[in-house]
């Protein structure tokens, strides 16, 4: 047990690629926890996907020992936070476990929207914020300007700011000294009833769920019987750990400390981020504040390309759910795609990651239907139904009104791109709220946008219209009434359920036209002419025809060709089997993905 006075719990807030992981690595290296050679590049981003994308999905933690210039020995717990808006809640819990934060800002690029959102969250949690101006060794670095921006925009005192270059190892000592000097030590009574907050977990096939937590009050020991207050789970602590950076067993952890426990918890769904751990004997009266259950915001249908893979897909989703309680799924049947699952995600990145992991780690070939948000549909009989799936859309005759989720978005951009970005927001049905100048050259644009409108390629568009300079963040802002309709796609006269989508009435024609044009290109020609139509109810709003196949024949086949040509035909036949038959029409899987991007630009 470490004396509270010498504990410092802190996290790093940074925009993607402003150098968060590199900085964490350098700090670990500097405190001598790992030698350079032991560092597997960036220790904290564990998942292959995280490394590839340069983002953090799971919060990681590390405990460092440091002897400061004042001669005292300190224990520094660095809690790494996820870096994406989909995981805002997870970030908030990780921040709640800290007393301080390093605000890493790129000396050349300045503050970004994402950073700003997290800084405000850190301020809400009363964290001591230490600005770290990173990459000062870049020729384009303007550290003084960035400092000024931090003062003006966030209102932070930058007198304790540290000039650093994580890459070059500049400023590491200064950062550690500043943390020891300015981040307050944790408070809390080690003898009070136990209250520890869960900020992350993962599933280990030997030990069960490994639960990451920060102790606020009391002490937890190996062998204690614990209760998770929101989920109600109870059991015995098998092991307690601190992060060195691997899990290193300890006997007890008390108020102010950060660690992990294994308690043979079989399912991650019992271990919810934000929940409070207490002891079964002498429990806390009240849980720690701030717990809420993660709710999926985006839904999509996932179907195996090979129908035989249905069970494998279910097993894979179950395995992923072991590690990710925010992933939800339930069986769904589509006429066109057969048996699959309706899956709910926290957001688009979350969806993307899950899909990619299913394909990579479980070697599954998937067909994904267009993602949709959750709509609240008010019926004429006064009831409200929650719609997660276009297939469940009520008969329009019974719909009084539809509400869709909206977000408040903040876009930070150099002022010269304001025009194109406002145009983009307008095109996405955005409502302008206001615009503030961060300095003479940069502005923060505030918009209200339907969540559905930022699901597709909004971020890509934002980047391309601002030459990569604009950054974007949003928070959910409730539901608003909107003129949404269900658009069906008919192929050869048959509606294809998996291609139905919910669209705004004013945009339906445009989306319908784009989609049928795309489908015409993606669906191979058949023996007969195939009309493709987009319809709202019985009204056709767009139509294209696929001309019948004229010719498909091997012109030459002699003695030396038989084996090769037979294999060619086998391959062709195999490809056909992978298509989904809707009526008499064979539709390739890409066609089902066509709905994913309905912008004309990418034609």
């Amino acid at each position, binding site marked *: 047990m470490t004396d509270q006075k010498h504990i410092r719990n802190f996290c790093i807030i940074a925009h993607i690629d402003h150098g968060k992981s590199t900085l964490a690595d350098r700090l670990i290296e500097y405190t001598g926890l790992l030698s350079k050679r032991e560092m597997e590049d960036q220790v904290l981003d564990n998942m292959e996907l995280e490394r590839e994308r340069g983002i953090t999905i799971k919060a990681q933690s590390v405990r460092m020992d440091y002897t400061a210039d004042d001669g005292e020995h300190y224990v520094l717990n660095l809690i790494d936070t996820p870096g994406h808006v989909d995981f805002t809640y997870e970030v908030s819990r990780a921040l709640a476990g800290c007393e301080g934060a390093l605000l890493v800002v790129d000396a050349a690029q300045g503050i970004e929207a994402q950073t700003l959102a997290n800084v405000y969250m850190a301020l809400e949690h009363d964290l001591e914020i230490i600005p770290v101006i990173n990459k000062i060794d870049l020729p384009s670095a303007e550290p003084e300007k960035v400092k000024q921006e931090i003062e003006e925009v966030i209102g932070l005192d930058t007198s304790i700011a540290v000039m650093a270059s994580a890459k070059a190892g500049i400023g590491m000592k200064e950062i550690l000294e500043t943390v020891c000097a300015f981040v307050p030590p944790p408070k809390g009574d080690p003898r009070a009833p136990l209250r520890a907050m869960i900020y992350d977990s993962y599933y280990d096939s030997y030990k069960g769920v490994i639960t990451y937590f920060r102790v606020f009050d009391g002490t937890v020991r190996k062998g204690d019987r614990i209760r998770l207050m929101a989920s109600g789970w109870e059991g015995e602590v098998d092991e307690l750990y601190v992060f060195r950076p691997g899990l290193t067993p300890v006997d007890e952890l008390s108020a102010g400390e950060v660690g992990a426990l294994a308690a043979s918890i079989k399912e991650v769904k019992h271990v919810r981020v934000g929940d409070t751990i207490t002891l079964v004997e002498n429990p806390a009266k009240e849980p720690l504040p701030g717990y809420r259950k993660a709710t999926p915001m985006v839904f999509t249908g996932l179907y195996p390309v090979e129908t035989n893979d249905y069970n494998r897909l279910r097993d894979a989703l179950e395995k992923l759910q072991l590690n990710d309680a925010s992933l939800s799924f339930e069986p769904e049947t589509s006429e066109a795609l057969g048996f699959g699952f309706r899956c709910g995600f926290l957001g688009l990145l979350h969806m993307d990651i899950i899909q990619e992991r299913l394909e990579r780690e479980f070697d599954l070939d998937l067909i994904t239907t267009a993602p949709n948000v959750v709509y609240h549909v008010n019926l004429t009989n006064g009831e409200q139904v929650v719609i997660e799936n276009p297939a469940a859309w009520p008969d329009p005759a019974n719909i009084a009104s539809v509400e869709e989720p909206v977000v408040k978005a903040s876009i930070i951009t150099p002022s010269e791109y304001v025009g194109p970005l406002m145009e983009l927001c307008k095109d996405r049905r955005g409502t302008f709220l206001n615009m503030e100048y961060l300095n003479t050259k940069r502005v923060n644009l505030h918009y209200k946008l339907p969540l559905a409108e930022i699901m597709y390629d909004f971020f890509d568009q934002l980047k391309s219209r601002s030459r990569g300079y604009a950054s974007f963040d949003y928070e959910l802002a409730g539901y608003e009434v909107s003129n949404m309709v269900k658009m069906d796609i008919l192929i050869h006269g048959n509606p294809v359920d998996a291609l139905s989508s919910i669209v705004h009435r004013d945009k339906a024609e445009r989306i319908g036209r784009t989609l049928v044009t795309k489908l015409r290109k993606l669906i191979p020609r058949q*023996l007969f002419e195939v009309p493709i139509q987009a319809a709202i109810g019985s009204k056709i709003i767009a139509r294209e025809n696929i001309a019948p196949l004229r010719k498909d024949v*091997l012109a030459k086949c002699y003695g030396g060709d038989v*084996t090769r040509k037979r294999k060619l035909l086998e391959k062709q*036949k195999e490809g056909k089997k992978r298509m989904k038959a809707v009526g008499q029409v064979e539709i390739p899987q890409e066609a089902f993905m066509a709905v994913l991007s309905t912008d004309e630009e990418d034609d």
Partner: protein
Amino acid sequence: MNLALYVHIPFCIQKCGYCDFNSYAGYGPEAQRSYVEALMHEMDLWARRPEAAQMPVTSVFIGGGTPTVLDGELLAAVLRAARERFALTPDAEVTVEANPGTVDVAGEKLHRVREAGANRISFGVQAGQPHLLRRLGRIHTVEEVERAVAAARAAGFENLNLDLMYDLPGQTPADLRETLTWALSLEPTHISAYSLIVEEGTPFFAAQQAGQLDLPGEEAEAEMETILAELLGAAGFHQYEISNWARRGFECQHNQVYWRNEPYLGLGCGAHSYLQLQAPLGNLGLPAPRLSASRVQGGCEVHTAPGKRGDHYRFWNLRTPTAYRNALEAGRLPVEAGEAVDEATEMAETMMMGLRMVSGVSEERFMVRFGRPLESVYGQVIDRLQRLGLLERRDGAVRLTARGMRLGNLVWQEFLPE
């Protein structure tokens, strides 16, 4: 049982832009001579084996590459060697492929070849417009075609094929009409007209990937097919296979062996054979111990009992002239690999190849060959394809409809085993 003999000459003056055949430019006379020696050695080895010795050989086809790249005497020696070692029937069809640009004006080479027993000549002509010939990478001119055909006639070739191509980049229906009119004026007995296949690995493929292959497009291609049927029909030719037209009685016997899925022995580098093996093929593990189609790679020491008698095997020779020669110099058959063709596959291939012919697959022949009626094996498939208007069934045969002829791939794949 009869046998057809294919002999591969893998040399060309230069490779054409569309060609993915096993052919090589740049081999000199010495390399050609030692290749022919190896070829004769291979003939010796086969002539001693039960599958080929004493078997009546009803056709010989010297193909390439460009057989006429060889010196006349060397090419004649190949023909004589085949005749000496194998039992050619008196009326055997003996074809030599020729490039009009590799035939001397005096007709010396063609005389030699004719004397050595060739009775059919097949010229690669492809098109009748200088710009198209250049575009294809052909080495000959329009005039050289005319001179070569005259020389062949003078040498005594009465059975004469011209290979043509259509749906070529830069080709118009009018070009094809002109080509056909001109080709017919040369009075061939047979015309092969191939619509261009852009094969992977060819310069044409690369051009297509780069978006630089100006193919005529669907409508023009359809028009070209109409022109083919119209002009060739009017000139007294009838179509007997997807890409082949002949005057009555001049259908290519050798190629019909392939389309009827009957046995053939391929000699030369990369050549394919289709035979009932009766003795192990070197150390290749052929015949295979199992009856299912199993592919066996060369080089591994697999000693096996022969497969069921009557099983067919398809195998192929080492692809490069050098590897081929080395194997023979070491006294081995130059087979690279092969597969046993089980009955289901044999049936499928019989349909896939047979339905290329306008006469289709004879129900009687199928019954005799497999001991089962066609109906019992493919009844449902045939019904379905009939309903789709791709197949028809009459006069004791199943054949492609006119539409089926253009959509053969869709038909053939239905016969493949699951």
